[in-house]
């Protein structure tokens, strides 16, 4: 379904964000995946995840007048950032969802699932990261 066979061992993940830097996640924030993907608390919300995509063009779209940043799964893992892949997200988001994608509304789970597929979304997971500010600086580079 994606335009290429993305491989975690060698392909980057892209994120559109401000020129000044990538938004800093909060390790102990609510870890609901559906809440995160649907952006229910809007701008300034606290989240332990960062939305990234396999596709540069998608990140560029999100960046608008900002910048496209990139990271690699292996570099992120070395800093304690887990990786929730697109395939894993899709498998979690059926019916009322499973695991951290469990959610009260099956319709909202489906909407989130659609976005994951359309955007080729992956989530770097910062729940075990002690210093997210430094970690974000370390693992994200301008693309």
């Amino acid at each position, binding site marked *: 379904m*994606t335009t290429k066979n993305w491989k975690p061992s060698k392909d980057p993940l892209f994120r559109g964000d401000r020129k000044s830097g990538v938004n800093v996640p909060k390790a102990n924030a609510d870890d609901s995946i559906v809440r995160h993907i649907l952006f229910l608390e809007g701008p300034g919300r606290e989240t332990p995840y960062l939305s990234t995509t396999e596709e540069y063009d998608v990140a560029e779209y999100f960046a608008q007048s900002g910048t496209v940043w990139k990271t690699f799964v292996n570099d992120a893992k070395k800093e304690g950032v887990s990786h929730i892949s697109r395939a894993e997200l899709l498998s979690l988001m059926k019916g009322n969802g499973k695991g951290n994608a469990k959610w009260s509304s099956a319709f909202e789970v489906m909407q989130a699932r659609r976005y994951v597929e*359309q955007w080729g979304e992956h989530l770097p997971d910062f729940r075990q990261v002690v210093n997210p500010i430094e970690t974000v600086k370390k693992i994200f580079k301008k693309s």
Partner: protein
Amino acid sequence: MNLHSCQNCWFNGLQYGALGIAVGYCSVHKKILNIADGTTCGLHLRKDLPLYRVKQVAVHHSDKYPENMIIRIISGIEDKRDISSDDKDLLSLRQDAVADAALDFGLLGSKIESLAQLKAMPGARAEVAMLSLARGYISNCIERNGKWTSGLHLYWWTRSRLTDIPDVGVRDIRAVGATQLARQQILIAWSVVMLRLTLIDDVVEYAAIQDDPIGKAKGLLDRAAESTQTFNLRSLSKWLKAEAIPSIDSRLSYTRYVELSQELHKESMDMPNVCVDDV
């Protein structure tokens, strides 16, 4: 695509996610939206969510953004290049039939007239424009102490084509994202069917508050998602025929629709200011 950007707002009938034309149009600010994926304002109401959630999210949104100007999401700055109300640009936009009707929404004597025009046009873009603007129309009526029946015709028009598979043309697609074209068409078509069901669900919610029997048909969106679990349009259409239509028709049949329409017409004749045909 930013979910809290103008592309995903009720008041922009020209875009919804990857569906639409290059620019949007805000029927509140009366501006062409040149970068609708990157701008927003405090009046934003999301297309992709059910009514109760739209209201929850709107509270966060209106705290963060000003109502009276369209600004960039990332920088928070108002950039005049992002919008236009120049006559030449509006004239150019009117070359598109859907945009022409959307631009007239709120300008002509009756908003329902513009929605009826959109209803008569073929294609998913016209349908999204009607459904998006209709959600705002009904909500405005309710806020002005209108009855749930202010959405009666919009409900019925939508119910009448609820099970049809939307016609999403290649020219209707703004971007393929991380998918291939054919898959994007399916995902867009699914989102249009669910937008139809969302409008029906809105009316059901309003009717429930006003104790009408159709208000008992709550929860259709979740039931549709639970029952189908994939983006298979045939399965969704089959479920809608087998479950959703009987559920809503048992509470609002065609005969009852005609009766309510006649009452509505009578009310509008007796009280011209009642919110039945215009807001």
